């Protein structure tokens, strides 16, 4: 009985400490702690992983190592693509380690879970890794920021640019689940609104290894553009086999909906040449991106993916906001982030009420082996920027969105 009474008393004490108000000014707990939660060992580790930690550390270094006279610390963890592991780590970070901001969070199931829980606990998340539009619509939160890209901006950017460039008829190879269907729908809407034509679509199950029958159908459709509404291994397999069928050589164009530079690197230029897709960052775009790209390469031995560049930029802008607000209090920092201009390697974005960071996106094309310059970028001279898609064209407008925090 005594034990029970004791544990009840402790429970009450803990309950009180949780509800106690956070101090409104200054830096809480004597330091600013930033958590990089990523996939370190699984399928997405090449996109984020250790490289994201390196990027975050570089941001802290470039910021000067301290903010408002207090040290900045980076912690990192592997969520193993499990929503429960990710949310357990995030809870512990916030409750025990007093982490002030969590970034990266690849994998949308983990991303949404962590964003929800962090917001309940008044902690800012800056998601650069997950693409789901749910982050700023159905599941939008007060402190959740979707920083880098979403599954609306990527296909829409690609489709807009390609249709305007003459790719007016489309055929889709779609991963047969919600993600693939939403990519296809978003793209179709844009293609049709620009006067393009949809020749058809074929659904391939998730994890298809043999795309030949789908590719033959796509080839037979006579469409100018084959849209790959899938991601990861599916996209890679489709591109490899499209190359074996000589689809690009025969005049059709491949459009990827979710491609990272690490995918292009592993496919090789011979296979991937001519592929067009949208990205938030390419190292060889301007001076600012080159500077970061080269510095990152010197530390990590690879050029950054857009996710890793996103982590760098998110951490840097978060620290700027903390400095401007004079505190690491989440409400004040979030308000500051909403007001300030978000510098993204030389282009300027802004963070909306639903948490979406609206910034320019870039349509890129994979270079052919002839265009490749081995003396540039340590073998990462892979892409050329074809067009800049202005932020307000690339992203869903607030009116189209369904975030309950936005007053319409």
């Amino acid at each position, binding site marked *: 009985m005594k*034990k*029970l009474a004791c*544990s009840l008393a*402790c*429970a009450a004490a*803990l*309950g009180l400490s*949780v509800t106690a108000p956070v101090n409104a000014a200054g830096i809480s707990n004597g330091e600013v702690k930033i958590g990089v939660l990523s996939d*370190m*060992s699984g399928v997405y*580790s090449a996109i984020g*992983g*250790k490289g994201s*930690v390196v990027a975050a550390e570089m941001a802290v270094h470039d910021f000067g190592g301290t903010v408002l006279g207090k040290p900045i610390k980076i*912690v*990192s*963890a*592997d*969520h*193993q*693509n*499990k*929503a*429960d*592991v990710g*949310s*357990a*780590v995030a*809870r*512990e970070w916030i*409750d*025990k380690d007093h982490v002030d901001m969590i970034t990266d969070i690849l994998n*949308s*199931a*983990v991303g*949404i*879970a962590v964003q*929800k*829980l962090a917001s309940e606990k008044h902690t800012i998340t800056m998601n650069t890794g997950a693409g*789901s539009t*749910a982050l700023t619509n159905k*599941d939008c939160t007060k402190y959740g920021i979707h920083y880098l890209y979403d599954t609306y901006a990527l296909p829409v950017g690609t489709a807009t640019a390609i249709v305007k460039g003459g790719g007016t008829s489309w055929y889709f190879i779609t991963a*047969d*689940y*919600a*993600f693939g269907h939403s990519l296809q729908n978003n793209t179709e809407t844009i293609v049709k609104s620009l006067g393009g034509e949809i020749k058809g679509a074929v659904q391939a199950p*998730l994890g298809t290894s043999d795309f030949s029958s789908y590719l033959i159908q796509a080839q037979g459709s006579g469409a100018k553009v084959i849209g790959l509404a899938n991601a990861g291994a599916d996209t890679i397999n489709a591109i490899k086999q499209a190359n074996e069928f000589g689809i690009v050589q025969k005049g059709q164009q491949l459009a990827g909906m979710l491609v990272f530079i690490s995918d292009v690197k592993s496919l090789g230029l011979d296979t991937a040449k001519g592929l067009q897709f949208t990205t938030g960052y390419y190292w060889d775009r301007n001076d600012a991106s080159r500077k970061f790209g080269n510095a990152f390469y010197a530390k990590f031995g690879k050029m950054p993916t857009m996710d890793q560049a996103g982590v760098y930029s998110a951490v840097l802008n978060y620290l700027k906001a903390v400095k401007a607000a004079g505190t690491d209090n989440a409400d004040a920092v979030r308000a500051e982030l909403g007001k300030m201009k978000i510098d993204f390697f030389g282009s300027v974005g802004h963070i909306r009420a639903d948490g979406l960071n609206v910034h320019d996106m870039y349509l890129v094309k994979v270079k052919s082996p002839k265009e490749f310059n081995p003396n540039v970028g340590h073998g990462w001279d892979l892409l050329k920027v074809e067009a800049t898609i202005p932020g307000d064209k690339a992203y869903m407008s607030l009116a189209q969105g369904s975030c309950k925090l936005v007053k319409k």
Partner: protein
Amino acid sequence: MNRIAWITVIVLGLLAPFAVYPVLMMELLCFALFACAFNLLLGYSGLLSFGHAAFFGGAAYICGYAVTAWHLGPLQGILIGTAFAGGLGLVFGVLAIRRQGIYFAMITLALAQIIFFLCLKMPFTGGEDGLQGVPRGMLFGFIDLNKPLNMYYTVFAIFMICFWLIWRAVNSPFGQVLSAIRENEARAISLGYSVERIKLLAFVLSATLAGTAGATKSIVFQTASLTDVSWHTSGEVILMTLVGGMGTLLGPVVGAFTIVGLQHELSSIGSWVTVIIGLTFIVCVLVFRRGMVGELTRLWKRSF
């Protein structure tokens, strides 16, 4: 287990959240219950199911959906999830127990993959985003589960009830018959037991308790995702059971604590998690043939 052992377990469980981070403790308990449920089948009945994630994750989705969409209380949600897993277990069981060994494992795997694809494609599961924002709610209408300790003691109570149930089942005539079937099925048949029915009962019981674990987990973490129903999870629970010691009551608990604890503790060092867990498994299989608990009990028995 004698009275002292029970009291030790209960006292340790009550004090644990003051030593270990409560959310981690809850995760450990959910997986421990999952492994115990699985052990009932593998350790005590000798049936290797490779599809237990379907019950675990299926119940997580159903419970999460019931609580989110129908605004039920957490307890009702867990009960519905559990009942769903039981029903699913009955269907799987009827189909699978007609075969033995590798065929049994393959049938359960195939059926579990069907559930995985349903969870991927059905609109209510949220696809790869998972089912998110499951409210923890109020237990019995007045205990606020958003408080970490309230949630922990609820999970601990659920765990202890289920653990007691498993202990009771194993040490009953039913449990004895299960062991008899495992050791010598032909003989059990010749003794007049309707082996298929008993196996089916064990299968359904195991599936139901796995469901309880999954449903509880979805309340704790406020989410259900595809990982819960994927075959990796089915594999992991086998790993937990083998590492801890199959056919022992505490083995799966130790195994689950080891594996999930490692996953959690190693998460900060990054990419080595899978390698270290793999090595742990290899070492356990080579050195502790009976699992950690199995080996310890043998040593204990030898020295006294």
